[in-house]
């Protein structure tokens, strides 16, 4: 069995964006529930926020592969 610590690091780095994206969409749902007519405007803002939070997770996966190294056993 061989694994990479870099992938564990990616798992850790995905926690923050996961919470962040949850908060963003929670706020979006709240906003739409209170004011359904603002849906269009809120959607753009929510997706923009989602994208910015997601960037961190994407950095994580790119770096996980950059630093994944080689298999010491073979």
């Amino acid at each position: 069995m061989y694994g990479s610590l870099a992938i564990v690091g990616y798992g850790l780095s995905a926690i923050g964006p996961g919470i962040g994206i949850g908060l963003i969409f929670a706020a979006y749902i709240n906003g739409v529930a209170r004011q359904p007519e603002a849906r269009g405007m809120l959607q753009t803002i929510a997706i923009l926020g989602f994208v910015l939070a997601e960037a961190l997770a994407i950095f994580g996966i790119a770096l996980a592969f950059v630093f994944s190294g080689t298999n010491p056993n073979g």
Partner: protein
Amino acid sequence: MSLPLLAASAEHGYTAPDQSIFWQPLIGSGAFAITRPAIVFALSAVLIIALLLAGTKRLAVVPGKKQMVVEAAYGFVRNSLARDIIGSKDFRRFVPLLFTFFTLVLVNNLFGVIPPIQYPTMSRIAFPLALTVLLYLTYHIVGLRRKGFARYFGGLVPPGLPKLIVPLVFLLELLSVVVIQPVTITLRLFGNMFAGHLILVLFITGAEYMFIDGGLGLKIVGIPTIIMAFVLTLFELFVEFLQAYVYTMLAATFIASALADEH
């Protein structure tokens, strides 16, 4: 279609796919090889041209089916992306660029799940990078032309800040505009397609290994694995649409902020 992977797994156990599955030269080898994504990309360009020509050949006031699809895609990019984000004053110049981004990214992403192509071109970083270079030049050049050098870079700092932190904010904003924005938009598209495709390959080849080489226990576990592969394919389809939308939206946002009068 991951032949080296299957050959490796037949010998000793299952080898999980890694980034090497994306390197698939078809003609030649080394840096100038014609690879599978290059051909898929060319195919996507031909397909987009053919679809757009077919959709706009006989324009009618009451649109036919093809014209309706093309008009819906164009209208979406023009109205809900370009006009709403850049503003009604000068969005028209950027509609062709944004529409190109949207269609190109969307079709190339969809190739990731459409058999028999099943290769998301954007999972090779060169392709999103080339699109971003175009975008990068565009938004800096239109910004510089509109405002001139001093106002373009001076406008990065919001007015009314205490004098002490102005240099700090300026450096941060400069870093954001010059480095972080293009890097994140490229890596986002690349990373999503790369990771998504890797997950699909992992589940599908994993299920294949379990069914063919595994014992009874592994064969039973293979059933949820193949169901999961199906579910994740649908999820990928969703992500592919979303990423095309997100890329175009961010492109429009960058252009808008380069053109905006104040911070």
